[in-house]
């Protein structure tokens, strides 16, 4: 499939996905399963990565701001801004593209090659709507919570550096993370993450849905889903940053 055909196929698939589900009861059950699978099960990795990155950012920020002309709270300020503006939205979504994206592409791809999607179609079920819509909506729903948790845990990681090492004092760090706070940056991070969540789930579903052949092709579909959704996330990041900031 050339790139134009692929883009066309993606939009046609989204046309099939965004329709009213046949059965609301079945949809809500699928949706709640996906909230748990895509959202809650991503929580441990979000917490671990955010905690460590928060701590590492604080140490790096301190090294780069060792200048008597800069106020001592600059380290905390830099940590907060990096977390709010880039890490807890873009970098987190790039990481989740690996976890959630590969999971979705391999699940749907396996269903394709084992004829489970054909079975749904033969039963008269809109397979794209039944399989993909709950995944997209569930991940988009969970994403703001994951972003906020990531920011909070990242800030805790930075606080840990102050509390357990002599890199920075806790007082300076706390002053820094509260200094000149702009609440819009949280919304900026959340808006970006919502778009990225849609990109991850829809592109991964697309690659899984059109997988064919055997296990090898499902593996390729999964890899393509992660690599290409990551690239699209970076383009979208650039565009949204230009538009929103």
């Amino acid at each position, binding site marked *: 499939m050339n790139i134009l055909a692929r883009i066309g196929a993606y939009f046609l698939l989204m046309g099939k996905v965004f329709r009213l589900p*046949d*059965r609301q*009861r*079945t949809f809500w059950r699928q949706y709640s399963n996906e909230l748990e699978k895509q959202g809650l099960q991503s929580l441990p990795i979000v917490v671990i990565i955010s905690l460590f990155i928060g701590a590492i950012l604080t140490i790096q920020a301190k090294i780069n701001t060792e200048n008597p002309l800069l106020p001592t709270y600059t380290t905390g300020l830099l940590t907060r801004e990096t977390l709010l503006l880039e890490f807890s939205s873009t970098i987190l979504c790039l990481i989740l593209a690996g976890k959630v994206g590969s999971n979705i592409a391999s699940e749907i791809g*396996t*269903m394709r090659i*084992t*004829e*489970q999607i*054909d*079975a749904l*179609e*033969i*039963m*008269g*079920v*809109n397979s794209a709507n039944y399989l993909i819509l709950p995944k997209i909506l569930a991940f988009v729903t969970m994403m703001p919570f994951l972003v906020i948790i990531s920011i909070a845990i990242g800030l805790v990681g930075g606080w840990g550096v102050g509390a357990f090492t002599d890199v920075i004092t806790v007082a300076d760090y706390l002053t820094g993370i509260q200094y000149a706070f702009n609440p819009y940056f949280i919304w900026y991070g959340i808006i970006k993450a919502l778009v990225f969540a849609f990109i991850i789930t829809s592109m991964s579903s697309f690659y899984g849905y059109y997988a064919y052949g055997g296990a090898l092709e499902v593996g390729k579909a999964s890899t393509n889903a992660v690599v290409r959704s990551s690239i699209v996330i970076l383009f979208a990041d650039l565009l949204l940053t230009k538009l929103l900031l």
Partner: protein
Amino acid sequence: MIEINDIVKSFDGSTVLNHISASLEDGKVNMIIGQSGSGKTVLLKSIIGLHIPDEGDILYDGRSLTAMKEKDLRLLRREMGMLFQGSALFDSLSVIENVKFPMQVFSDKDEEEMEQRARYCLQRVNIPEHVFHLMPGEISGGQQKRVAIARAIVLEPKYLFCDEPNSGLDPRTSLVIDQLIKELTEELGTCTVVNSHDMNSIMEIGDNILFLKNGVKEWQGSRQDIFHSDNEALDDFVFASNLYKEVKRTHLLHQQ
């Protein structure tokens, strides 16, 4: 009744089905047979609407498949049951949940009615009760096929399609599956279409047989007609093994 009217299907310039016409009757096991690559699967997928023919039409009791809008096609598919080559049971659902699935999506039955109907269908295909709550990966290939049959008949379809129902099964289990397909066809009066190259199945349950070669319909008739056919391609295919050559010789001798 399903009528196939002069259908043509090509992929990348290569014609896979070349002007095929046939009638598939209700209450009978209609078999599509032929060697690998003869176009059986493409024909079956065209009949069920997974492939759209380039030319020709398929009529379901007079309703044109190719002229149908997507909504009507989905309604028609609710009248179909399908047994896939690899069973195609949903991995994330237990055996009984797989059978309940079509009812959950399409019927207004309450949970208890669905449970009863699913249990009835599973018992009808001889699945023991202790298997009901196992996952598809935990049961044998023969049991998976039977569960898939139970799922296919749970909404009492008018049309039942089976793609290579015996692939990967031992001869004894194959016989059980064949008998089950035959019994259900007679019991429910479905128009059953079986895609197979298994000679035992053809001779056991084939009421109306459609033989394809290189995408062309070579021959159509009953399993009794096979013995008297002078079609060389059919003879080569059906009586390729010495065993069936002997069966034919004995049959003809017996008739004389």
